[in-house]
């Protein structure tokens, strides 16, 4: 056993104030969660991956010498890293090659990224808003309101969502807006259930009773007292719904019900890639990596967030 050095102990004096002083800063719940998140290496790496994909999607199409829909028949299906010889863009490199119409895939991938990520984020926000309001109202009022609202939810939930999406795609022109509307029609259900469960658990607590006693309106109680307490689960759920939207968009684009040419998304690029991947595998592999990497990063980041907000759930 190691001898304990005496000099490690010092007398700090007899001031009662110093003896009882709190030695570290007090952190709010959010600060504490953020600190835990930053310590989670996987989550931080995922955050950077998401950031890099987003930055490329925003800036790559602006700085690229090619336009996403400009066709060069001299350079169809050229390999990755081909140097362009067409007048105007001589010497520029097709980093990811070109597709069957000679469009630069590097530019198209990041244009597709814009579309896919925009759809994902917009859908996640819409789900968040509808789900939180619906779940909050249903959970807080309880009784008949709750029963009716939950029955409606269960019936919508019973119909497979892809059927609703496909039915809607038939009557609206295919495109970004349709995908967003279609997904939002059903995407809010898990969020509403989650928020309702949380609110039901919270509304019997003393701080709600206190607010009611002070005469706060239901809107104020839901918005100011109940919802902020469900924030952590809501944030986690939103993060985890983004990969689900990206998957749905890719799936619909694959079925030909999604983004239409010449616009592109990662899903429609993957679909175009599958058509001739036997000869030009890179045309499938690059969008496949983008889709998978995004889904993976959001999934792992969501797991990290959950661990950070609620360390008891850590497995």
């Amino acid at each position, binding site marked *: 056993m190691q001898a304990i050095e005496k000099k490690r102990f010092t007398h700090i004096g007899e001031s009662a104030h110093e003896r009882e002083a709190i030695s570290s800063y007090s952190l709010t719940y959010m600060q504490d969660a953020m600190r835990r998140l930053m310590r989670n290496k996987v989550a931080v790496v995922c955050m950077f991956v998401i950031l890099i994909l987003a930055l490329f999607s925003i800036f790559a199409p602006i700085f690229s010498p090619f336009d996403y829909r400009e066709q060069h028949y001299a350079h169809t299906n050229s390999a990755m890293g081909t140097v362009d010889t067409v007048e105007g863009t001589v010497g520029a490199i097709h980093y990811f090659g070109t597709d069957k119409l000679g469009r630069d895939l590097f530019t198209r991938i990041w244009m597709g990224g814009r579309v896919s990520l925009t759809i994902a984020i917009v859908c996640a926000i819409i789900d968040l808003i509808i789900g939180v309001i619906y779940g909050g109202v249903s959970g807080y009022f309880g009784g008949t309101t709750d029963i009716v609202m939950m029955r409606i939810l269960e019936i919508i939930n*019973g*119909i497979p969502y892809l059927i*609703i999406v496909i039915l*809607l795609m*038939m009557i609206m022109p295919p495109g970004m807006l349709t995908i967003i509307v279609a997904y939002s029609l059903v995407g809010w259900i898990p969020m509403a259930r989650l928020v309702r469960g949380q609110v039901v658990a919270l509304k019997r607590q003393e701080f709600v009773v206190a607010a009611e006693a002070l005469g706060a309106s239901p809107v104020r109680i839901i918005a100011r007292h109940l919802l902020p307490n469900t924030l952590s689960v809501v944030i986690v759920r939103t993060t985890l719904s983004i990969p689900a939207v990206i998957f749905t968009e890719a*799936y619909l684009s694959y079925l030909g019900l999604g983004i239409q040419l010449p616009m592109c998304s990662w899903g429609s690029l993957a679909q175009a890639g*599958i058509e001739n991947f036997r000869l030009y595998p890179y045309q499938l592999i690059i969008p496949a990596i983008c889709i998978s*990497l995004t889904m*993976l990063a959001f999934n792992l980041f969501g797991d990290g967030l959950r661990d950070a907000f609620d360390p008891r759930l850590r*497995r």
Partner: protein
Amino acid sequence: MVRYTIKRLAYAVLTLFALILLTFFMMRLLPGDPFIGEKTVSQTAMDNMRIKYGLDKPVIVQFFIYFGNCLRGDLGISITYNRPVTEIISSAFLVSADLGSRAILFAVIIGVLLGAVAAVKRGKFADTFSMIIAMIGVSVPSFIMGALLQYFLALQLRKVFGLNWFPIQGWGTLKQTILPAFALGLGSLATVSRLMRTSMLDVLGQDYIRTARAKGLSERRILWRHAMRNSIMPVVTIMGPIVAAVLTGTFVIESIFNIPGLGKYFVTSIKDLDYTMISGTTVFYGGLLIVCTLIVDLLYGFIDPRIKLEG
């Protein structure tokens, strides 16, 4: 239990009604007309066609006729193929069901084993390995997985090593089912194995496992008899969503591997504006999912008598 069953049945019927209603009216809102392509046909012939398919009556009447027919198992006659929809569906669905059940079996058996091994060997190589598989399954969509498998395991294996293990596409032989079933099942496998790992870890920490050890039971008996049986319950609860995921996945997997299943009809009928076929496949597919979910929910109570289903 009885009350719960009745309640669940009532929901299933209500949902089915909502589904048929939705499908019917969405379809009527479609732009275009199923007979619009046949320009040379005279007005009288057109009217006769409309009468034959019942399109001359008011929409509400059409709906109730349609609803009654659905309940009797008659989904109408396909406008494009001029054959009863039920006939087309029943022949095509056999193929889809075959593929789907293979994928589900693969996902559940391998998923449960992987998850259990990962929990027992927590933190070791086997754990990391199975969680990597699970992460791949979660983040690679099935149709991309299918195309990649085709490229690497069918095409390149034959080109580079001369091994003709996996045919690229088609349906009929056992060999041809391996790649599509794998691609289709991988996503669900990931879900099952993650859930199984969590649940197994939870069970392994329980007191009755310690008691079993203290009694001197063999490790194998503890794992198979005590731990596995108790930790498999959460897997049963997600069988409903898994059936749904696999069934929807079949649409794209079938088109990639050129399999003559139901998926093909679903997509082509939308493009052909084949009213009866669209609603037929939708109602069939939706109804199937509703029934599957119902069965899983009810089974849950029978499998685990500890769970008391509340009415």
